[in-house]
């Protein structure tokens, strides 16, 4: 029984890191109505930004994470504006494929700059905390706290701020939003900035948790999408719950099946969701 509990804890930990890029992806999907797969490589960029801030500039962790947010958000919205916006005019499919190409491009810019090796941040390796017979990594606890904080801030932003209301308006009904004189373009850019920034924080936390290399984004792409599909694409709470489910699912697969097939979980999860409840748990009508 304690094994199952440990599994759940491990899963929730890894799921909480997946949560932020998943929210970002969902956000862009909801407001801009297209899947921007470049979130994966933006997460990698976030991870490397934190690495550079921490290891080269010797900035403290909170500053490094904020730095990751800014860099990721800027590159995200910049690349979107230059390269993806023209494609959106040609349709969702063109934009989606374009975002895949952009993802490859950005991943290789990272590879060009840093090489393929794993990089670790200057974080002390500490023994786990043991609570009620369950192991939890000390760094993991910090990471979950960071992720939860970012998510809560975003949630409050969406609910209460003017820009948040505008984003929801555009997401729910773009035509009506236009009638209300909401500048869809500006809202879109802000959304992309925030969403990509979140992905960047996600990448930074992943880097803190283990390490960062150019393939970080590719590794989380399928689980990220699976989390959004399960939770209901375009839904904020959906992304959170979906990430938790995927996290736990991957841990279970590692133990029950084989650690090598972990990534198969995302794939199977999507297939099952699409067969049972295609619009996801928190689907919007």
């Amino acid at each position: 029984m304690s094994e199952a509990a440990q599994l759940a804890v491990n899963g929730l930990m890894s799921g909480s890191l997946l949560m932020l890029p998943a929210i970002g992806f969902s956000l862009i999907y909801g407001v801009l109505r297209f899947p921007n797969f470049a979130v994966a490589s933006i997460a990698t960029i976030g991870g490397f930004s934190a690495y550079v801030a921490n290891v080269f500039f010797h900035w403290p962790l909170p500053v490094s994470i904020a730095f990751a947010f800014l860099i990721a958000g800027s590159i995200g919205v910049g690349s979107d504006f230059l390269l993806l916006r023209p494609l959106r005019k040609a349709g969702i499919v063109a934009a989606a494929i374009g975002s895949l190409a952009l993802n490859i491009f950005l991943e290789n810019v990272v590879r060009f700059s840093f090489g393929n090796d794993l990089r670790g941040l200057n974080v002390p390796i500490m023994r786990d905390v043991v609570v009620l017979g369950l192991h939890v990594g000390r760094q993991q606890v910090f990471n979950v706290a960071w992720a939860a904080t970012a998510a809560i801030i975003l949630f409050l932003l969406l609910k209460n701020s003017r820009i948040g209301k505008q984003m929801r308006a555009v997401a729910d009904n773009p035509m009506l939003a236009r009638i209300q004189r909401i500048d869809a373009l500006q809202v879109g850019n802000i959304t992309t900035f925030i969403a990509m920034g979140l992905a960047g924080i996600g990448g930074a936390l992943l880097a803190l948790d283990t390490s960062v290399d150019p393939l970080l984004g590719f590794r989380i792409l399928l689980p990220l999408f699976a989390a959004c599909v399960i939770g209901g694409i375009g839904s904020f709470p959906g992304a959170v719950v979906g990430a938790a489910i995927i996290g736990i699912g991957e841990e279970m697969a590692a133990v029950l099946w084989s650690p090598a097939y972990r990534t198969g979980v995302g794939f199977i999860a999507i297939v099952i969701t699409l067969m049972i409840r295609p619009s996801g748990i928190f689907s919007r009508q």
Partner: protein
Amino acid sequence: MLVDRRQAISSLAALFAAALPRASLAQSSTIELGALVPLTGSGGSYGPSMAESIKWVLQNVNDAGGINGRKLNLTVEDDQTNPDSGVRAARKLIDVNKVVAIMATWASSVTTAVAPLCWESHTFLTTDSGADSITQLPHQGYLIRTEPTTTLIMTKIGNFLADIGVKKAFLISAQTPFAAPAKAVLGKVLASRGGTLLGQVVYDRDKTSFRSEIDLAMKDKPDLIFLDGYTPDVTILLGDLFRAGYDGKKIARGYAVNEKLLSSLPPNVTEGVFTVVPSPEVGSATYKSLAQHLNVTEVDPYTCEAFDQANLVCLALQKATQPTGTGIRDAIHAVSDPGGTVVYGAVDGIKALRSGTRKIKYSGVSGPCIFNQIGDIVDVKARFEQVHNGKPTLFKIT
């Protein structure tokens, strides 16, 4: 007067030969050799020094007059530690450069892919890949390897573990074809010495955390965990083991626990880790001069093997009836089987052969270099070290 006439005739002959266009000679005047090494990819830290050591051997042989007057020409190709690239590079070496031998392939997957191309084209292949299956291929003698098989090295490791008092061991292996044979051999050896191999978990190298694997490994409280992987994954594994509070013994391969790993982990995480490598002949004069030439204090085992392979190929070429892959194949045992004058380098061996010595035996820096019928080395010394304060220190050589 006789001497003058002889001199005159031989100089005339030389002039005549020089005036002939090269194509009219049956053979070209250089012997082409190839090195297919990982300059990039996961083996990328070894490739460059492997190539350099081969270059050095050939340079020395050329400076001493080459093989029967013919110079050796080396082409180095990068296999990117990837079998597809390896195959393309090998095709180029065989078809375009027309090499008679390809040396120093490192990754087992590359060697497995490239071997058929070699034996089909009668090109001699020397490798430092360890997968048991490689020498089982129908290579018709066109392949030798200087790296011990998994069986050989695992037997040594198993006995060592029993010697240091391990009763319950667990094996965490990277996803490679070595994983299954390693488990089989280690389990058998431990059982024969009164211990048990509790189990094995095989992990996908592409991951950044192995907590679940470690939880599995620690479940039955082993005295020792064997981390059979490469530098990036072993780095993560050691960190995760520390976090999980594991206090038992740990052992890993020497090529994984290298300078990079030791400098990226704090000393308390790596304290006490045992490492194992096939032992180079560290004391020998040749080893020292190789280290000096490469400007390092320690030469990694793969570079030692590449060095030996180059020497063996040169000696076989000298001994062979014709300087082709088939010639090397037929002569290789004659220069490596025990018996005869022992030589430690190609230059000395060539000199001995040319002055009429009937049998020479090359003794290498990576080991004694005695091969069996299918091209495997018959024995190896294993060198066990233990990390203290972030630095490896010699523990035992068996």
